[in-house]
């Protein structure tokens, strides 16, 4: 290392420390690192309350898709389902994730479309739920802000029942446990025949889809209304 190199290095590090100016690269690097440091410090105070409801809904949808992709899972596998494949359709995980990225990124309004669909489904379905006679006595539809919420004795058991019945028909079901007492469920029939079957099966369970797909709802435990996740 010659004296010129050493002097150049010292000048760079002095600028990087903020004690000198006029070294553009060092100043840009310093700015970038300080900005990162500030962001990480701010993140220490992050709270779930910071996330707006609409954004939370979009993130919940992504979580549901990741669950379906096998990224993480809490339900025991149903018989005949291969690991790392989407239930019902047998789509390889990598393909599914690629499709998911495409679904989420290029059309920037896609998440908004989902949110709008869910919101519309909620409004229509809730209206129909309260007006129509329910199928099973165990279900009870309540207003949960932006999504249909159904109170049942045992949400986990009901989820398993729905999954079992629909997946036997080749219909995709995505279920995410939100907490100990609550589940978010999305059913995704891919054609008219599947939609008719899905509507009939859910109707038998006291759930009216309003014929809007994919249909999403929450199952809450009757025993603990405090378990309701934030809407």
């Amino acid at each position, binding site marked *: 290392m010659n004296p010129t190199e050493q002097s150049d290095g010292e000048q760079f590090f002095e600028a990087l420390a903020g004690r000198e100016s006029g070294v553009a690269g060092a100043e840009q690097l310093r700015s970038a*690192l300080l*900005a990162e440091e500030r962001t990480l410090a701010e993140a220490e105070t992050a709270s779930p309350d910071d996330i707006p409801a609409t954004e939370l809904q979009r993130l919940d949808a992504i979580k549901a898709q990741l669950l379906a992709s096998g990224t993480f899972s809490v339900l025991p596998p149903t018989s005949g389902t291969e690991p790392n494949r989407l239930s019902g359709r047998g789509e390889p995980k990598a393909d599914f994730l690629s499709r998911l990225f495409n679904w989420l990124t290029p059309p920037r309004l896609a998440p908004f479309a989902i949110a709008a669909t869910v919101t519309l489904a909620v409004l229509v379905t809730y209206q129909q739920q309260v007006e129509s006679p329910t199928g099973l006595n165990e279900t009870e539809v309540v207003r949960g802000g932006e999504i249909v919420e159904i109170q049942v004795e045992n949400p986990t058991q009901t989820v398993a029942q729905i999954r079992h019945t629909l997946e036997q028909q080749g219909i995709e079901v995505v279920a995410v446990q939100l907490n100990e007492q609550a589940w978010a469920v999305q059913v995704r029939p891919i054609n008219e025949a599947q939609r008719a079957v899905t509507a009939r099966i859910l109707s038998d369970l006291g759930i009216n889809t309003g014929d809007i797909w994919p249909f999403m709802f929450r199952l809450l435990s009757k025993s603990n209304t405090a378990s309701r996740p934030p809407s």
Partner: protein
Amino acid sequence: MTFVTDCRYNQSRWSKATTHIWLSGDRVDGEEFMRRMKRQDFRVWDELMPKLRKIALGACRDLNVYDQLKDDIVQNVALKVFTNWQSFNGGSKLNTWIYAIARNCCIDELRKSITRNEASSAICEVVDEPVDGLIGLLADDSNSDMEQRLCVQQVLVELETEPPPRKGSIRKIDLLRWWVIHHPSTEELADFLKTSLAAAKERKSYVLKALRELCHKYCGHDECAMSEGH
């Protein structure tokens, strides 16, 4: 229902992570994150999301990514963190790793903007409370300046990929962070590295040389931001 069966993570690579983050009142550090992802514990999503989101939004602000792209970037960061979780190797803190992912997503957007020659519309016109030194850089948002900032960010991305250090050593990126935050003297650096003054000076030159090589790689010309005289 499906399960992840290909858990290739190597415990020895992350078990030395010594840093921690706090989430929703619970302590979740890099080890905890890996352990719970391996267990397919979905609740880590809910616990990590507030912090992940804040880091992603912060990175958007730090790299001056246009407001309308922020939601997309938060979603991309979430997807990448939870689909590439096995690539977290404990070389850095969990939150620093998340920031690196967010930085990469932002760079992708900025690069697209440069390609489309839409620099002026892809970056924020106003950044509230700019950090030290950033004000001047934001004042001139020419394509050239944006390319230089992009180059610096890409250098940081590459430095972040450096594997965990050997015992008693420190990664270049961590040395740079420490230097910027603590702005020490070379003597203090020698103390920090537990080495001689001459060796500390040598280390600084070595880091600068590596920086310049990386910068040249990304800028693609000799007049890159880190070169002598810049």
